[in-house]
């Protein structure tokens, strides 16, 4: 296990180092699919330059990172490339750990005899599961999206590192520690963390007093760490400017730079009268699926994390390919669902085609002038539809596998012929 992992790491580092040194690094750092106004490296440098000039980075509209990032990069700005590569390795190692841990738990479930005998082929053998962490690491490190994101030095990599750490800690059971870290993220994950670890390994029994005691403890710790982080950010710069600049920016979407998400063109073409309404609708849409998903998947916390990550990456206000890479890295964990997936071929073709067409249509719009914004917008729509299909397909496959685990794999109807299974 160690040897292939080391080989993988070496290959990944080589690719990234090679790209860093080439002229492609500048080109990639400017691509709108890879960087967004929230996590572009150029803006971090600009924020640091403004700080050097004695102006608060939040007095203008260029810098939208939390003050902790300023603090971090003030010292690390010369070692930026190494920082990002280290964060990549960190993510991959964390991602390695999580499936391993979660399968350890699943092994206990294996030994339970509640599954009908013909489901044995649905259950994974330990031999398969042995290779899954390596596959996860490979999916993450060698994913072109992650490579591009790392070479562009987008702070998405750091965000992914913190999310991965959160997932690891949640699986391990020490969820309380991670809130302080995850609150560094000014992004949406802050929302679902609360529900997530809350529901994780705690049996929900409203009548038991210990449940409420635990809730209270948990809420207190969450609010406390939130307070600490916000105050720390305040003391770094001495102003509260960062609150509207960071959180207000994500929520109110004033910057309409094109990206791979749905927000930019929608709000570029929105009637002024309805702007606030649709802004609220779109932002609620991101958080909306938390409660239903956590109710439905309360026995399957790891899948819940995956679903939440995916939904947030698709519907957030400034998505980039780095966010997509994180949830795509989880796909090998569910490789046993392959037989129930319905749209694999379609989704993979569409994703590949859209990824290839993004730079082409951008060039045609911005540089050649022979296409207009509608072309790029259409590809954005298609890409998001493909992602939604992928996520809902995996969800379907997961639920179907659960059904089969409880009811048997080869279902027969009353008269003995083969049955079909539908959602009703």
């Amino acid at each position, binding site marked *: 296990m160690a040897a292939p992992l080391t080989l993988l790491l070496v290959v990944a580092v080589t690719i990234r180092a090679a790209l860093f040194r080439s002229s492609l690094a500048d080109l990639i750092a400017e691509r709108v699919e890879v960087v967004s106004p929230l996590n572009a490296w*150029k803006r971090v440098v600009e924020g640091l330059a403004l700080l050097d000039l004695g*102006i608060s980075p939040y007095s203008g509209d260029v810098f939208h990172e939390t003050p902790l990032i300023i603090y971090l990069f003030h010292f690390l700005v010369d070692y930026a490339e190494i920082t990002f590569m280290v964060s990549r390795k960190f993510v991959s190692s964390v991602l390695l750990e999580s499936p391993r841990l979660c399968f350890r738990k699943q092994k206990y479930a294996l030994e339970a005899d509640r599954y009908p005998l013909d489901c044995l082929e649905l259950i994974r053998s330990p031999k398969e599961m042995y290779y899954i962490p390596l596959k996860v690491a490979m999916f993450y490190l060698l994913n072109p999206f992650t490579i591009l994101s790392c070479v562009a030095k987008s702070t998405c990599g750091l965000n992914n590192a913190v999310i991965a750490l959160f997932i690891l800690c949640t699986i391990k059971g020490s969820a309380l520690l991670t809130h302080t870290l995850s609150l560094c993220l000014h992004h949406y994950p802050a929302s679902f963390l609360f529900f997530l670890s809350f529901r994780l390994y705690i049996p929900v029994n409203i009548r038991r007093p210990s449940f409420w005691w635990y809730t209270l403890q948990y809420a207190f710790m969450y609010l406390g760490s939130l307070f600490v982080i916000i105050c720390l950010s305040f003391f770094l710069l001495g102003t509260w400017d960062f609150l509207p600049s960071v959180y207000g920016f994500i929520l109110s979407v004033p910057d309409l730079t094109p990206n791979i998400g749905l927000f930019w063109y929608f709000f*570029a073409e929105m009637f002024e009268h309805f702007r606030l309404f649709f802004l609220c609708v779109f932002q609620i849409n991101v958080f909306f699926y938390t409660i239903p*998903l956590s109710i439905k998947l309360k026995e399957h916390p790891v899948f819940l994390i995956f679903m939440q990550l995916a939904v947030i990456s698709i519907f957030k206000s400034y998505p980039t390919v780095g966010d997509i890479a994180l949830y795509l890295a989880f796909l090998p964990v569910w490789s046993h669902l392959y037989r129930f997936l319905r749209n694999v071929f379609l989704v993979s073709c569409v994703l590949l085609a859209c990824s290839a067409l993004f730079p082409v249509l951008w060039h045609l719009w*911005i540089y050649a002038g022979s296409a207009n*914004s509608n072309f790029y917008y259409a590809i954005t729509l298609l890409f998001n539809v493909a992602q*939604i299909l992928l996520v*809902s397909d995996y969800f379907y496959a997961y639920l179907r596998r659960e059904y089969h685990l409880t009811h048997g794999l080869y279902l027969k*109807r009353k008269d003995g012929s083969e049955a079909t299974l539908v*959602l009703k």
Partner: protein
Amino acid sequence: DEELVIRPLHSGDIYASFQFRTVWDTDFMGGKKVSHYRLFPKSLGQVISKFSVRELHISFTQGYWRTMQWGQPFLPSPPGAELWVWFQDTVTDVDGTWKELTNVLSGIFCASLNFIDSTNTVQPSASFKPLGIGNVTDHRFLRYATLPREIVCTENLTPWKKLLPCGSKAGLAVLMKSEKLFHSSFHSQAVHIRPVCQDWQCKSTSWELRQTLNVVFDLHSSGQGKREWSLFKMFSRTLTEACPLASSSKIYIDVTDNPQGEQFELSPATPLLSQAVVLGDRRTYSVYDLTQQATFGSMRSLNMLLRWKSSDGECDMMRPLLHGERYVAGYGLQTGEIHTLMYNHHPYRAFPVLLLDTVPWYLRLYIHTLTVTSKGKDNKPSYIHYQPSKDRVRPHLLEMLVQLPPNSVTEVTVQFERALLKWTEYTPDPNHGFYVGSSVVSALVPSVVAMDTNSTQERPLFSSFFPSKEESSYFVRIYTEPLLVNLPTPDFSMPYNVICLTCTVVAVGYGSLYNLLTRTFQVEEPSPGLAKRLANIIRKMRGVPPL
């Protein structure tokens, strides 16, 4: 006072500059209400008193002043409209007062100054120091705005002429006929109000209103290619009398290049000659005094004629010491670079210049890419004041003090990123582009000739506009070209389609997740095919058991 200065330019064009000066002895600082205006226009007097204005400078310009071909103008102005105002320190809400002032001025001058709002107003911290007396230098009370897209036409000239004491009926203002004035390469009209000392002890102040009009007539379009200029050819009018309300009314013709009359011939000849030091150069002028009846001659009208003797023999014009240029580099609609070039043509003296740049918010400047190079080497500015923009609230403001080495070109470059605006924020012709106002370069240029610092002596108006505090340098302000930048545009015909399509994608996500969340798997009893169902219906009707 009124005066007209005519200066033949080396390219064959001719530069005419009118200045009208009205002095009003009243004191606003005390806060007394004034009702006796005499010669001062009542509309401007009311503006000054109502909005507590200390200094007001407004100019409307059509065309760009070509410094390298025409030399330095007496009064520089940027293309489009420019307004800068110093308020008195009794004003509490400067922004609100500024907004009202711009609206009132747009009514007075029939110009669309109401487009001046917080997105194109800045507060320069070092440039645009007050030109009148008074020592308030808190730049909170200064506001500066330009509208580079503004066009000047007859509707702006008419109210401007109405502000003159004699109107356009007598005196030099008779020459201002719009069909000739606007048929020119450069046309600029301005109004400057500032407090000045009444006498050399400066015990009391009075208000000075200067109205200036600068025109450059082109040799080929107005002059029909013949190098022969007369008042009638330039303005289609001749002068018959001076304005009776004017205390002095003069015409100055620049004859420095023509001491013995070998280049051109001036008729009718005039014995009066005067010398003045202006723009670092000692120039000689032939003077026609219109208050003397003898000037008009027997025909009661004055039509000066300058006829050039030979068509060759261009002698060297003194090269302007300071010159600026600006352009946009880069390709595509995503990023770009603004390059500002400043030329110092002095052979051995270096001097510092103050560069003021106002860039609209939708061109996001990246100040870490700012580079200043002179002669290929890095030149660090000694003072940088940068105020970053806020989207849809205020523009970028960059002010730098740069030392220009002698005989060199200094290049200031900064990268920017173009923003995508909301579809309602584009002008009706979005592919024309967006204008970026001119940069302002202000400097004290060393002068070869000693400047006259005595401010109370009678001097021609054109040499007394910028007060010179020291003898060895004179103040110069240069405006660079405005820029025209294209922004990426969304498709304006698509708002409904975009809303529908995006909501469809969101609904696809919602629908599939809703299905999976609220429904469970069940074994399906398949319903029989259509043929079988029809057969069953027929069988039921026949009374036969179904299939």
